[in-house]
């Protein structure tokens, strides 16, 4: 978070700039010459302060970059060199810790957590090959919804419902290895995966306008530039080039936010998310918007849990924990939802098995294994069901004179 100390920092920097130009007078060669650079020391001091502010804010990698900038300006600054060394050691230690946690999570078979740990190691050190290789080779992406096909569903309608984009049907098609132009059989299960960069639309709240475009910033709105340091705390968000800070860029009450708040109050979380996503589409990363979004996701996850919609609840919670891993008891809730979901599919498998629907039973248990590769019962049941199925098929073959289809 941004500390109030930053306001002082900003003031100090501006002061420095003025100081800088006082000393410029002596060096600029008169009218018509290009403005000369700010003097060495004040410039280095400015970046030193930025490095310290970033460090306090926990942005270690960017703080290290600022120290390197200081050293480019004043190469003989022993203190800066020392600070950079110490910071680098802290970064290395944190990266090692995250890698270690990632490997442990992998060993426990908790893919989602492993992925997050490796990714967060890369966020600290984007050229870390161990984290990169682990993500690329050992970590499966497993976040998906298990959807039971209903009459009338098509891949396009599902893609529209879950991604707000019909043409994403290809992703569902590919994930499930379906034949070309498949006809979906009601009752079969489809995996609907998350797509990076595409917001997952909740089935209860068909979105009027997909906020996908929002991830693409307009030219006057800079992307998160990793190297851009963080001065001044009190300055409001203003597009670059604007001369003076003005509060009017952050209006007090945005109608979409108000709508979202009201929807949350009446427990209509789907509606709330629609509004808040629309708001965030125009202001990606806005703090108020994100806070409301988290609140809505949490509420939604809870009510889905109560309604035994575990898949949906997992989805909401996954989105939530990606925004903030330690939001309320979201982590615990997610674990609970996963466990119940696994149990539900396992029981469904047993039910199918009792009804002698072996293939359906196997499909349910396979799903269980995908969610929990260490589920011994599911594995054993699959083996048994497959043996039975084989025996049955052989008997059928004999019985019908080898017509195996």
């Amino acid at each position, binding site marked *: 978070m941004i500390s109030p100390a930053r306001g002082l920092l900003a003031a100090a920097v501006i002061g420095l700039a003025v100081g800088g*130009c006082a000393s410029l007078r002596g*060096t600029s060669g008169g009218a018509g010459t290009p403005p000369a*650079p700010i003097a060495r020391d004040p410039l280095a001091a400015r970046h030193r302060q930025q490095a310290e502010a970033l460090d306090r804010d926990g942005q270690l990698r960017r703080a290290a970059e600022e120290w390197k900038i200081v050293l480019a300006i004043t190469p003989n600054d022993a203190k800066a060199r020392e600070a950079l060394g110490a910071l680098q050691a802290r970064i290395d230690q944190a990266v090692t810790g995250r890698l270690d946690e990632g490997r442990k999570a992998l060993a426990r078979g908790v893919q989602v957590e492993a992925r997050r740990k490796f990714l967060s190691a890369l*966020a600290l050190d984007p050229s870390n090959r161990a984290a990169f290789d682990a993500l690329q080779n050992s970590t499966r992406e497993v976040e998906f919804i298990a959807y039971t096909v209903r009459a009338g569903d098509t891949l396009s309608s599902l893609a529209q419902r879950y991604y707000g*984009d019909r043409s994403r049907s290809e992703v569902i098609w590919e994930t499930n290895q379906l034949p070309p132009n498949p006809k979906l059989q009601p009752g079969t299960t489809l995996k609907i995966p998350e797509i990076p960069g595409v917001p997952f639309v909740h089935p209860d709240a068909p979105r009027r306008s997909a906020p996908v475009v929002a*991830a693409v910033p307009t030219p006057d709105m800079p992307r998160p530039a990793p190297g*851009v340091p963080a001065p001044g705390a009190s300055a409001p968000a203003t597009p670059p080039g604007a001369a003076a800070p003005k509060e009017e860029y952050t209006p007090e009450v945005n109608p979409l936010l108000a709508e979202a708040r009201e929807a949350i109050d009446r427990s209509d979380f789907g509606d709330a998310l629609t509004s808040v996503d629309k708001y965030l589409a125009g202001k990606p990363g806005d703090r108020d918007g994100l806070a409301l979004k988290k609140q809505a996701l949490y509420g939604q996850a809870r009510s889905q849990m109560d309604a035994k919609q575990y898949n949906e609840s997992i989805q909401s919670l996954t989105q939530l924990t990606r925004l903030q891993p330690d939001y309320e008891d979201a982590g615990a809730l997610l674990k609970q939802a996963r466990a119940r979901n696994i149990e539900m599919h396992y029981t469904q498998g047993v039910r199918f098995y009792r009804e002698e629907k072996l293939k359906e039973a196997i499909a349910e248990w396979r799903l269980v294994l995908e969610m929990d590769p260490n589920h011994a019962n599911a594995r054993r049941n699959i083996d048994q069901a497959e043996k039975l199925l084989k025996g049955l098929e052989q008997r059928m073959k004999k019985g019908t004179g080898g017509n195996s289809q």
Partner: protein
Amino acid sequence: MLIRRIARRRALLLAGAVLLLGACASTAPAPAPREAGPAPKAAPRPAAYESDDFVITFAQPGDTPESLAQRYLGAADKVWMIEDYTGLRAFTPGQEVVIPRRSWNLAGVTPGGYQIVPILTYHNLAEQAKGRLVLAASSFREQMNYLKTNGYRVVSLADFVEFTRLNRQLPQRAVVLTFDDGYHSFKDFAYPVLKELGFTATLFIYTDWVGAGRAALSWNDLRELAAAGFDIQAHTKTHADLRRAQGETEAQYARRMQAELEQPQEQFVKNLGHRSQILAYPYGRWEEGLLPKVKEYGYIAAFSVRRQGNASFVRPLAAHRSQIYSEMTLDDFVKNLNVFEEENLR
């Protein structure tokens, strides 16, 4: 998120500093009656402070990100490094500009999320759209103009592959263009637009189609295109589904893969002087068992048509592309251009 807000703040602060500088510059010539002689000569300050990692300089009138990239990075096409690092596309005279000399984020991962690279797939083009896979030339031009005017940077597929090997940082708004099969219409409709906008592209060709009539590119065409800077890669021999067919024996499958994956290589060497290293799966279809074979025949990256962008840590033999269909509106097209997945990774 936070970073973006900070980026804006910083720009603001810089603007403030510049204003102050401007203010004192204008006061400089006016006073000082005591200095009757010539302007004092001081030791010249360096125009920039430099290390192996960074250049810190000050924009002069007329400086653009391009001119600074040319001056300090030795190539105007490295302009993205300045724009991505500073978050700025234009400078006020006197403004401080920090220029990174090296990659600063190879994997494209930040505490706020990670970069994803869209790879677009085109097939045939014509004056008029026809079916899903024949795109109207006017739509194509509109889409390419959209990329240009919205700050996307078209990078080569080879650069993308290096990105997936943690060897190369890509611009934050990197996009890759690919054209499948080897239609002659590429030369007629795509090439002029791409050349005008300075965009590169990869053509995935299946070798049985090369030179097979007027609708197909010939090896001569392909050599010309390669000489003009376009990348030619393999799309198998016959454009058959590479997954093992039902009832296909191990030996049959091995023979079929040899034909589909190795024979194009021989053609590439004979006609273009090099092997192909990148493969597009016909129909975008693949399965786990196929990957070792693809690797065995020398391909280091291969692409499906699963409609999603690629993080740096995507498996290179199972990377994704998004097909652009003729019925897509510009809005539909833009849905395929996400370049960042937000996720809290602090």
